């Protein structure tokens, strides 16, 4: 479970992005965070990842106060997350190599880490078996994101944070990867928080949708979306209504 308690996050200029903001994410939930650019959604993800500390307030994950990136949290960014000089396999192994580099210290790597994990299973599962020796520059956008996903899943996370992970992909690739992500979430019992500016993506992926507006964000505005996640969902009226509803609410902001 993730609890944000009275988070305030401000930068040098402008109003705080979040002001005494509370939010709770239960384990195993799939959340989509939706909002226009500049609303603070990426900031929210960086806060939960532990890469950026909040100005004031606390983030508590599984009863522990978050002070640094947690070994069981995986973060996937829009692009540029892969090492350009490393092959698909080396990139997928990066997280494991970082863990071996530090050893099971409980800080950089979990104390109960398994020393001999290999990434081939994940590369196969994500359909990258043929690409293992290629460099990121030789891959399509979809293959690059698959590599980033394999790299993260190889670390056996319980929480997956995604920042606009599919926004640079073409529609069929994007929809394929959205579905695959949801499948993997269920299989691996992972909590998902995906940040997006796309109403359709939020409506398809989030069982709960957090709508952010123009800063400062003071209250978590949650829209339930229990029937999301199946491919047929896109053809239902519920989906269409939800998208319309979200669009209207975003316009009002």
């Amino acid at each position, binding site marked *: 479970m993730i609890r944000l308690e009275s988070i305030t996050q401000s930068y040098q200029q402008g109003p705080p992005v979040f002001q005494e903001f509370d939010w709770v994410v239960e384990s195993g939930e799939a959340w989509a965070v939706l909002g226009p650019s500049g609303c603070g959604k990426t900031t929210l993800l960086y806060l939960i990842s532990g890469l950026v500390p909040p100005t004031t307030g606390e983030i508590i994950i599984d009863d522990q106060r978050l002070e640094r990136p947690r070994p069981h949290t995986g973060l996937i*960014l829009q692009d540029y997350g*892969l090492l350009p*000089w*490393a092959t698909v396999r080396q990139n997928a192994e990066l997280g494991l190599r970082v863990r071996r580099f530090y050893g099971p210290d409980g800080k950089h790597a979990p104390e109960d880490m398994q020393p001999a994990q290999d990434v081939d299973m994940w590369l196969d599962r994500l359909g990258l078996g043929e690409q293992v020796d290629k460099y990121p520059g030789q891959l399509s956008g979809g293959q690059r994101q698959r590599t980033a996903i394999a790299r993260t899943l190889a670390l056996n996370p319980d929480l997956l944070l995604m920042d606009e992970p599919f926004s640079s992909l073409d529609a069929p690739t994007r929809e394929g990867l959205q579905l695959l992500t949801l499948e993997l979430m269920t299989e691996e019992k992972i909590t998902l928080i995906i940040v997006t500016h796309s109403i359709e993506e939020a409506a398809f992926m989030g069982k709960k949708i957090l709508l952010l507006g123009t800063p400062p964000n003071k209250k978590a505005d949650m829209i339930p979306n229990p029937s999301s996640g199946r491919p047929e969902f896109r053809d239902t009226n519920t989906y269409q209504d939800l998208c319309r509803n979200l669009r209207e609410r975003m316009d009002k902001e």
Partner: protein
Amino acid sequence: MKIQRRHLFLAVLVLLAIWQIAALIINRRILPTPIEVGQVFIQELSDDLIEHFMASLWRVLASTALAIAAAVPLGLILGQSKRLNALISPMVYLIYPIPKVVLVPIVLLFLGIGDLPKIAIIFLILFFQILVLVRDQAAGLRPELIQSVRSLGAGRRALFRFVYLPASLPAILTALRQSVGTAVAVLYIAELFATQKGLGYYIYINGSTLFNYPAMYAGVVAMSILGLGLYFGVDWLERRFCTWQSVY
């Protein structure tokens, strides 16, 4: 560009043939034939040419190692810290284009005889080249990449090992490729002064004092081999460690 070995070999033969023909046409002592120079080269190798060669090679390798050791960490820091870079860059900007060869007399005045001034002058040439390229490479690393790797658990040490170091390798090799020729040229100048070891000295003493022209040419050949060898070495390292750059 990939040059085939066979073509390279042919090019050597053609150049030697041109040399041979020119020597026959000119027919003076100041241009011996390649055959003559070749014989002297082999003789001199077993005499003291090899010592001069090793002295020069040592100076280049030592200064390269020092330049890498000093310029890479500084370049990485400047590339990652905008504030420091704003402070230091104007100085680098001013010093970078100064042809370091004009500093030879000054360095000699301060550091005197022996290996140190020679190593220092090559160090200066390589240092700024590596510094600038590594800095730009490090500045070009996207913050998203750094954050992604940090999210995998990497702290400062792991970032250095898995991101900064491999990222600066191509910059180091590019810097060496660009400046190894200049370095050898300046080494030649530096070895004309205050030393009795090194190919520069060897070429000079045989050409202008002993009037042993075939030996002087043997020295020129040795210097060329030194320059070419270093260039090939960098080439090999690039092919070995930077395969990813050639696939785009």
